[in-house]
């Protein structure tokens, strides 16, 4: 199958000779740095990650134990203009998401106005009944959003997915930058890269800002399922960089709707829980009674307004695939303007016209189950067999409401170090958007995930994808440099 020529982030549609405007220095750096030198530095970075224990565990594969996510030494670049456009769009989208979740667990205007069909929300497995009617402190639900963005051309960015529950990957964003600063200092000397190392401080400020009213110096904790969880490295990294306790469910207890943690000095009241466990495990009294990961009574404390849970229970409704298709309408409804970053075109098969189109174009589309995840229940038309297409056709006709369809996108590529030298590989991008009591903040960066196989669109780390640093170049207005005072050495 002839592959469509994808847009390359560095070379545009060129052939590795002329960099796009604003990318010249990166192009020069890549031309001037020999491949064996890139490979040497990349090996050093990966050795450092292993020694630091920057790993993820693979479920159900005891032998595999811990792996490092492959790291690619060639960074991806955004110009200041590209970034400012993106960040406006991200802020708009996350504000709309928050308004939407507050609405569906509150007055439900958007359902009453017929913008989003009621059954898509109220009949949705992600609709969290115990969260209904509970208003989180400061009214914020999705405090941390990881919005997956793909690109197909110079000005064509699309949102692929809104990760509004417990998005992960931010530690890789930060560690990748640390590795790049050590290994490619000359690149940072040439480019004015905006710093991202303020992320833990911004996250901490956000957590403090959303504490229940009335607590002067709130106690914030990060709740992890424990060190066998695949993202445990990130949990400990974040707690560590924020200087907050990393707790497991068994470290917490609830008495009179107040959450406490068990310390060597006795019980300490907890105000904010940045949880990295799913709703279903939060509280065995409310959700899965089998789970030992959560804290009995936590939901009652939340409903009483005594503790902030970040992200709030029930935010899964915001990143559901069926709801995703309504995001353009949702943004328009709450923000009064068009979405700055569009969705990938999505056909809702529950609608007869969309179903007809989908059935007519199965060979060109990606068809997804609305309640599936991680590639389950998915048809990738261009690479599917005749039998698979026939099966999906039957399934679509039987239960059209369970499916959405999207065109297969020619994702942009970024030069990547491969066994055969530097070659283009497809990428996506996950920036992290923080919503606090007063403001929305976005650190100028994100996690670029790269498909390491030639032509592959699979960037998922559990399926062999890697990561890259994402550099955002400073705009024309620079922060003033603080004056430096050098202290003389004595002899």
């Amino acid at each position, binding site marked *: 199958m002839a592959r469509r020529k994808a847009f390359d982030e560095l070379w545009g549609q060129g052939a590795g000779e002329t960099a796009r405007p604003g990318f010249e220095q990166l192009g020069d750096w890549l031309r001037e740095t020999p491949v064996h030198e890139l490979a040497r530095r990349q090996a050093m970075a990966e050795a450092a990650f*292993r*020694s*630091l*224990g920057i790993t993820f565990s693979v479920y159900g594969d005891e032998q595999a134990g811990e792996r490092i996510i492959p790291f690619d030494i060639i960074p991806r670049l955004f110009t200041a203009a590209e970034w400012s456009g993106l960040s406006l769009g991200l802020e708009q989208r996350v504000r709309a998401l928050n308004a939407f979740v507050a609405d569906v667990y509150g007055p439900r205007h958007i359902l009453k106005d017929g913008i989003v069909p009621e059954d898509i929300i109220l009949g949705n497995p992600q609709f969290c009944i115990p969260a209904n009617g509970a208003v989180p402190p400061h009214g914020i639900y999705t405090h941390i959003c990881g919005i997956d963005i793909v690109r197909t051309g110079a000005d064509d960015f699309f949102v692929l997915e809104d990760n509004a529950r417990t998005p992960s990957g931010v530690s890789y964003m930060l560690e990748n930058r640390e590795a790049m600063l050590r290994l490619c200092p000359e690149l940072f000397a040439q480019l004015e890269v905006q710093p991202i190392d303020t992320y833990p401080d911004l996250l901490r400020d956000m957590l403090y800002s959303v504490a229940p009213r009335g607590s002067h110096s709130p106690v914030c904790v990060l709740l992890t399922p*424990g*060190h066998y969880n695949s993202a*445990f490295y990130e949990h*400990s990294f974040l*707690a*560590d960089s924020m200087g907050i*306790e*990393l*707790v*497991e469910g*068994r*470290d917490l207890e609830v008495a009179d709707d107040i959450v406490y*943690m*068990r*310390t*060597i*000095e006795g019980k300490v009241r907890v105000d904010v829980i940045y949880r990295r466990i799913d709703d279903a495990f939060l509280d065995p009294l409310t959700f899965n009674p089998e789970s030992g990961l959560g804290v009995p009574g936590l939901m009652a404390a939340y409903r009483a307004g005594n503790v902030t849970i970040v992200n709030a229970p029930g935010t899964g409704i915001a990143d559901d695939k069926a709801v995703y298709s309504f995001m353009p309408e949702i943004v328009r409804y709450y923000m009064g303007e068009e979405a700055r970053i569009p969705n990938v075109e999505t056909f809702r098969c529950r609608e007869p016209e969309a179903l007809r189109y989908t059935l007519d174009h199965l060979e060109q589309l990606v068809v997804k189950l609305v309640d599936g995840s991680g590639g389950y229940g998915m048809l990738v038309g261009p690479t599917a067999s005749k039998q698979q297409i026939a099966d999906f056709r039957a399934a679509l006709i039987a239960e059209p409401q369970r499916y959405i369809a999207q065109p297969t996108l020619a994702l942009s590529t970024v030069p990547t170090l491969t066994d055969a030298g530097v070659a283009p590989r497809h990428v996506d991008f996950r920036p992290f958007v923080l919503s606090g009591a007063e403001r929305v903040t976005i650190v100028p960066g994100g996690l670029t995930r790269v498909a390491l196989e030639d032509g592959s669109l699979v960037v998922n780390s559990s399926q062999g994808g890697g990561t890259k640093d994402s550099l955002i170049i400073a705009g024309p207005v620079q922060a003033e440099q603080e004056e430096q005072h050098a202290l003389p050495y004595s002899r």
Partner: protein
Amino acid sequence: MLSRTAANLYWIGRYMERAEFTTRLIEATLRLSSLSYGADAASATWESALAVVGRGPAPGQTAAPGATAFNVCRTLALDLDNPNSIRSCLSRARDNARSARNALSSEVWQAINRAWLDVGDRTSPGSVQHTLALIDSLKASSRGFEGALARMLRHEGFWFMRLGSAVERGDNSARLLDVKYYLLLPKGQKVGGVLDRDQWTAILHTVSARNAYRLFYRDTLKPWLVADLLLFRSELPRSVAGASAEVVDLLAEIGGRTGRQGEADRLARLRHSRLTDTNIDEVFRSGLHEFLKDYVAENARIDAAISQQFRFP
């Protein structure tokens, strides 16, 4: 600090100390066995190393055949079925460190992680040369851990790790002295007889006290002086008295920071004052073995009191 975290840190201290002690025990035994003539003597030497860590033959039983350098090194260093092997200790220390990672400096974490990576999935100690190379790298790892610890922030986490290693160290030295002293005693000979100086050197080697002995006693190797050094010279970090004093100080330090003092402090002070009120002659009069057995039991009581005092889960 979370009680669970404090427990993890305390046990990191214990496991890292136990791993280092076992490393030194193997090293000293290798040295000793290369000096012994005949397979029987070498085998007895290796059996005594097993006995120190509580894996010798049960009382009244004869030793199983095959206490070879290779087998014993494998049991002590790499055997995951032995919960006290170096590999088991490092693996549990690392597990605890992962779980309590945000209470550790990244250097301490890396030192533990590196030690664990060094042993990796090795299951065979290989030739003596290979074993010695492994020992060198394990010793370097221990130094790396201690160096990283020394530069850690002086907060509860630091004190709990140190407390764990002090509790463990006293226990290890007492075991070493107990087993070696009696195993090395030739049949029919009274305590304090003339014993093979190489074997006493091996004991000193295990607690890295060869030069300390010369410095303090300016004498040839005398068993009761070795016992005196290992029991009472608090200048020696691995002595029983040195470890006991450290436990008292560390508990006071933690108490000063958290306001929690209690049974563990009381027991530790009591034990230390008993140690300072006695001397080697009295110990021999009342029985060295009984003395050491009491010490190890007292150590276990202090360990339990620490768990209770700080609400270890």
